[in-house]
């Protein structure tokens, strides 16, 4: 039950953030669904994978795919969907606990949490890089093929 409500909270938070970013009216809900999707992926894979960083990586891949596909369909910038959907995955808790442990002079735990937070941020970056680069590659290949076909058609005509 708490797992389902956490998805709803992620959706609500993303939806409110979409207002702050001034996202156009017709795309408010679409961009907030990205936030829900990230949390949902995290929860689903939690049953199989126990590694936190890998879970964040998978969740980022899911939201990047969602954002890239939606950007192609609606012909609008990817950032519109990605920035909002990424917010629930940002490790705010990690940063906070790192600082609390360091303030309590619990250096060992502080450094461990800090490195873990760094790992999560790296996973977010890698997830976005992987999906966006693949999409760019596919687009470039498609443009290349289209040009080739055109050139062939022209040479046939001549």
């Amino acid at each position: 039950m708490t797992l389902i409500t956490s998805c709803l909270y992620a959706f609500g938070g993303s939806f409110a953030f979409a207002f702050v970013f001034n996202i156009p009216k017709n795309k408010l809900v679409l961009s907030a669904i990205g936030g829900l999707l990230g949390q949902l992926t995290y929860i689903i894979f939690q049953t199989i994978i126990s590694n936190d960083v890998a879970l964040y990586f998978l969740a980022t891949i899911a939201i990047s795919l969602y954002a890239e596909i939606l950007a192609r369909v609606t012909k609008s910038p990817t950032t519109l969907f990605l920035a909002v959907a990424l917010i629930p995955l940002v490790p705010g808790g990690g940063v906070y606990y790192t600082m609390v442990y360091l303030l309590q002079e619990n250096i060992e735990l502080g450094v461990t949490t800090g490195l873990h937070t760094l790992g999560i941020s790296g996973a977010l970056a890698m997830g976005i890089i992987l999906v966006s680069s693949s999409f760019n590659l596919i687009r470039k290949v498609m443009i290349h093929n289209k040009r080739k076909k055109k050139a062939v058609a022209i040479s046939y005509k001549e």
Partner: protein
Amino acid sequence: MTGSQLSHIAMEIGVTLLSNGAETYRVEESMHRICMAMGALSAEIFVVPTTIIMGMTFANGDHMTRTHRIHTRGINLMKVEFINSLSRKVCYEEMSYEEVLTELHRINSTPPYPYFLQVLALGFVAQMFTLFFGGNFQASCIGFVIGVGIKVQTDVMARFETNIFFINIVGGFIAATVALAASGLGLTSQMDAIIIGSIMTLVPGLAITNSIRDIIAGDYLSGLTKGIEALLIGTGIATGVGIPLSLLSAFVRV
């Protein structure tokens, strides 16, 4: 269309994109495409988050350089979206100088969401993320109050052109102080969830996204600049939260 008119349109579009939160490569690509579609022979555009430099040559041998310094940057993705579709339209359809200018003016004067709605939205963000990180309903209401307070504080400080580092220190300070006071008064026992939830309102989501996307596109300079901005904001928040936690926790039993 004359060369100076063309450069005017391209520069206006680039400036609007860059100062409202578009990625660097999007600005460069849009400006380049517009220049080429409207009759420049070649166009070289260099964009970093604070400056646009544009040089172009024309078929009759003229050349022209224009620079623009960006002083204030905000987040308004509505304008980015509209400008994006405008520049697509400019590239594929014939549009006169006046038509593009009126269209640009219309986009620039599109009002953002009303201010009270944005304040409420940020309060709602804090409330939702307090719940998200395991707080109960009472804790989330305190989070809502902090979120509203942080929004007003950031806007007031941004109006006086305070640097972004200090704004976030004060934001984190407010979040931790109010949460500490609330738990000191016995209103809640979930101080951690309230603080984490309310500092999520300060998280630089767009800076992180844009920095990663810029680095993918090969604009390492802009990517690093934005990445460092995100890192500075994060450090600022942690510093701001740390001050009351270390100083006031002597007085408040947590």
